[in-house]
């Protein structure tokens, strides 16, 4: 595997103070993620996965430790610099989608391009957004509003939005949480293709089957890393899709 770490966490901590109680959501995580890696983060509910992802995504600031993104200490960046990082370097798929309601899927996907430092013309924005939607298999639904889309479709809009600015790092918090098996595998296929093109992907998932498509699996428990190992053997999306087809034909699902 080639090269230098894009994400370096050094004893990263996040403590929430909600009233009297202190919640230690992340307590001392240290790890390096290299360029081109495809990482699955697993762990039970409340183990701190989303909290960690938010910090890696430059959305939330750690309360302790250090986070270096491409060798730069994120704590030294100001608000605008963080916004630029979120806009250009990182694509983020939220656990709760976070789409704009009453705004079409296409416009939702276009939105990150509005905040690009280089001006992108409306025509170009349209084209890029449509391409991203096609990639996740939603091309025909681009005019629909989020409340007219199923949970799985909304999730795919969120993925398209994360990809539209061609980030070098894709962070996805349970990107397949609402998807059926076939769509999940399709999305994993998209991720594997992107990863083959050199994009670093960090993905939270609860499903071991989904984690098998990645290259490295990290398990959190109570805010700490308890397992960190390569995925062996690794699933390939096209192979799994073929297997699924056979199985589905057997029960006449399609």
């Amino acid at each position: 595997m080639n090269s230098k770490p894009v994400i370096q966490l050094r004893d990263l901590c996040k403590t929430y103070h909600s009233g009297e109680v202190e919640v230690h959501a992340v307590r001392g995580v240290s790890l390096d993620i290299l360029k081109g890696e495809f990482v699955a983060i697993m762990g039970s509910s409340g183990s701190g996965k989303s909290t960690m992802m938010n910090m890696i995504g430059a959305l939330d600031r750690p309360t302790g430790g250090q986070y270096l993104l491409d060798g730069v200490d994120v704590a030294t960046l100001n608000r605008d610099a963080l916004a630029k990082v979120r806009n250009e370097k990182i694509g983020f798929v939220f656990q709760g989608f976070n789409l704009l309601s009453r705004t079409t899927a296409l416009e939702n996907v276009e939105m990150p391009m509005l905040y690009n430092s280089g001006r992108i013309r409306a025509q170009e924005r349209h084209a890029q957004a449509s391409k991203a939607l096609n990639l996740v298999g939603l091309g025909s639904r681009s005019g629909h509003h989020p409340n007219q889309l199923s949970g799985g479709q909304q999730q795919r809009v969120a993925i398209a939005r994360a990809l539209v600015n061609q980030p070098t790092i894709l962070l996805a918090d349970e990107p397949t949480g609402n998807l059926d098996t076939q769509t999940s595998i399709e999305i994993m296929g998209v991720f594997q293709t992107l990863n083959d093109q050199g994009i670093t992907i960090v993905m939270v998932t609860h499903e071991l089957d989904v984690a098998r498509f990645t290259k490295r699996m990290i398990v959190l428990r109570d805010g700490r890393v308890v397992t960190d190992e390569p995925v062996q053997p690794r699933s390939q999306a096209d192979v799994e899709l073929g297997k699924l087809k056979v199985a589905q034909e057997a029960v006449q699902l399609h």
Partner: protein
Amino acid sequence: MRLLASLKISARALRRNKMRSLLTMLGVIIGVGAVIASVSLTSGATKEVEDQVSSLGENVVNVFSGNFTRGGMRGGWGSAPTLTLADSAAIAQLPNVVAVTPEVRDREQVLANGQNWNTLVMGESPSYPQIRNWKMARGAMFSDDDVASLAKCAVIGQTVVDQLFPNQDPVGQTIRIRNLPFLVVGVLAPKGFNLFGQDQDDTVVVPYSSHMHRITTRRFVNDILVEASSSDTINDVQDEINELLLDRHHTTDPDFTVRNQLELMDMVTKTSRTMSLLIAGVAAVSLVVGGIGIMNIMLVSVTERTREIGIRMAVGARAADILVQFLIEAVTLSAFGGAIGIGGGVAFSMTVSNFYGIPAYTPYLWIIIAFASSALIGIISGFYPAWKASQLDPIEALRYE
């Protein structure tokens, strides 16, 4: 972020809450509308008064008998007989005096064509049309010779023409005043109503000498009209008349009053300036009220859209992008309200004007001022909410329920 995209987002947000946007704008609409309407109506009135003042003639000094500046109850304007033809002749000799006419006035029954009409008969010198800046529609003014010979000739106003000579050319015909035949030698061009709502065209003008000896018998004139050579000399002329008449009347306590047109004009502009100040005050208050309404609704909007703000920040919107977006929204509200208010104000004043026959006139400057200040009020009242929105923490905003 691009302006066009911001505008689109703002327009959509405002359209989403049509009723609320309209109600928010209402403050600005009513404020601006009221200001434009009252400006239009007062400007129209002021303009008309100005026109009328200048229709009295240019650079005119009025000399009235009686002193009404002192409040001394000598009967008011022109009633106490103190001014004589000799006074008038003496004034004519003063420097910078271009023309003078003594004036005598009387209401008389005038007959012609078997019709009869009660009108104001004025005795004037031939300079009268020149001083009053009054053109002749037909014929010509009588001459100095006519004055000298106590000629029985007259120049009549349009209203008198309409009453006594409908559909006829009165020039060359005869009218009878106190049973004396007067030859009509000219017709004055229509002039309309004066400041006091009197029909200026309802008049018959005869040589002052004829008036004072043939129609009535009197030694004193009601007043004297004097035309100064220019607006620069008008004050000097006024002072000199004062001095001259005091001297001639052998008194230090004036038994006459000298007024010039600049003073009248001053009074008009002073009144209109007071009105403008009043309107500006009303405008300021209503814009502040409108601005508070906008600020209020923008604060609500920011709170409601906290999640949206969080989402935009999460995908890379900078504080400035959010600030601009909400500012544009506030300015759109207020500028749109301002535009509607201007339209409504103009429409209202035009309706009132048509209905009641009072003139209305909207100065462009006020339209620009009204629009600019409503846009400005949007910026001012939108700034705090927009700034608040821009300072939100992305992750907090995303978690907002």
